[in-house]
């Protein structure tokens, strides 16, 4: 089994859909998440506040210095993540496809490294 990170991507500065549309999206996402749980592939899901809500910690001369985030200003931002545990990429892509259909923004699928004990 391999774990994959499914990131919901969006363009910086893009406007959120109106509340009714957003509610519909959220309930559809929850339905996909329940489907993942039933199938036994779901590890974790969560939506993120905007990058401006972040704090960055830096190692500087032996000290840890805190500053306001984000760490880098990028055009593509992550709005939320889901982690699934499945046999291979195609299985992860099948779940990502379901998410992409309801969320309508791009989904990036990335494998976690496997550490051998």
């Amino acid at each position, binding site marked *: 089994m*391999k774990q*994959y990170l499914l990131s919901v991507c969006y363009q910086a500065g893009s406007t959120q859909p109106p509340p009714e549309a957003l509610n519909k999206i959220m309930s559809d996402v929850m339905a996909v998440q329940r489907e993942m749980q039933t199938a036994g592939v779901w590890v974790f899901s969560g939506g993120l506040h905007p990058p401006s809500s972040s704090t960055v910690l830096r190692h500087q001369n032996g000290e840890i210095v805190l500053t306001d985030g984000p760490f880098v200003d990028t055009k593509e931002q992550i709005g939320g993540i889901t982690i699934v545990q499945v*046999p*291979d*990429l*195609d*299985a*992860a*892509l099948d779940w990502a496809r379901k998410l992409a259909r309801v969320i309508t923004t791009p989904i990036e699928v990335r*494998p976690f*490294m496997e550490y*051998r004990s």
Partner: protein
Amino acid sequence: MAVITRFLGDISLAEEAVQEAFATALARWPQAGIPPSPAGWIITTARNKALDRLRREATRSERQRAAQLLTEAEQVEEHDVHDDRLRMIFTCCHPSLAPEAQIALTLRLLGGLSTEEIAHAFLVPPATLAQRISRAKAKIRDAGIPYHVPEAIDLPARLSAVLAVVYLIFNEGYSAASGDELLRGELCDEAIRLGRLLAALMPGEPEVLGLLALMILIDARRDARSVGGDLVRLAEQDRDRWDESKLEEGRALLRGCLTLNRPGPYQLQAAINAVHSDAPSAAHTDWRQILELYDQLMIIAPSPVVALNRAVAVAEMGGADSALQLVDAINLPQYYLLHAVRADLLRRLGRTADAASAYQTALEKCENAKEREFLERQYQSLMKN
């Protein structure tokens, strides 16, 4: 290769094992004689080499896995080889890999060309191509790209990706996008070989047969298309130099897939080429039928390139004026053939100055030396008259 990859789950390891097996065969077969089943011998030897290696290098958990593989890997049957090659094709053409990586991997793992030969054909340094291949293999391993034939629901999309890779290889061979040679025959041959492999693996898929028919029908004109290294257009080609046995094979393949009654873009393009091949001379070409086929193609697979080819058919049916209007509506500013077609239409309409400037634009966009020479000749003859 494909069989060993399934046993080991790792393409690089499989490749090394197969190379070692061939080296052993080279050393042993001249004295001991060729074994009754050479392919089976290579597969068994490669598998044993890989397992030796795993035992030597592996940690305990990997040794256990290797032992498990050995017990699973019983007798290799002919149909296993068949299925494994099919799996390998879908892995090599997985949409998670960049198109150039798909092409390089397919040629390397399923084709018969060396890394140096592939690099030469695509005009990249061998080191660049080797790196492209090793990165693609690493991605297959790290991303967990599976080694299986896609499920029925995904098959149409995944199959069209496979066919696109093979057709890209063919086109790169038949009309090299850049460089000094007009044709790179080794790539045409390789694409047709891959097409035959796909047709053998998926005989029930009409588009697989359609692609093979298309490539063979075009390839039949190879010798007539390049005379003394110079480009000769379809209309001016010496039809006696067309390879009649290839044409016959292409037509037969096309008839076969059309009976499956599931038309698709490759079958339609093959049909268009079959119509060309049926005409004893350019003047006898059944342009009406070709136009009808392009109309169908515009419905199921519209693209600017198809629209441009359709406009050429319209012009041949006597409508240079309406063809020009069609061409002017196509948005393909970087495609040199659009400007070349435009130039030709303007010439026919007697608009010499406009034609000259269209030839100039086409020359600026064209990167193949032989095709540039052809355009240059067209331009010069326009200026003379």
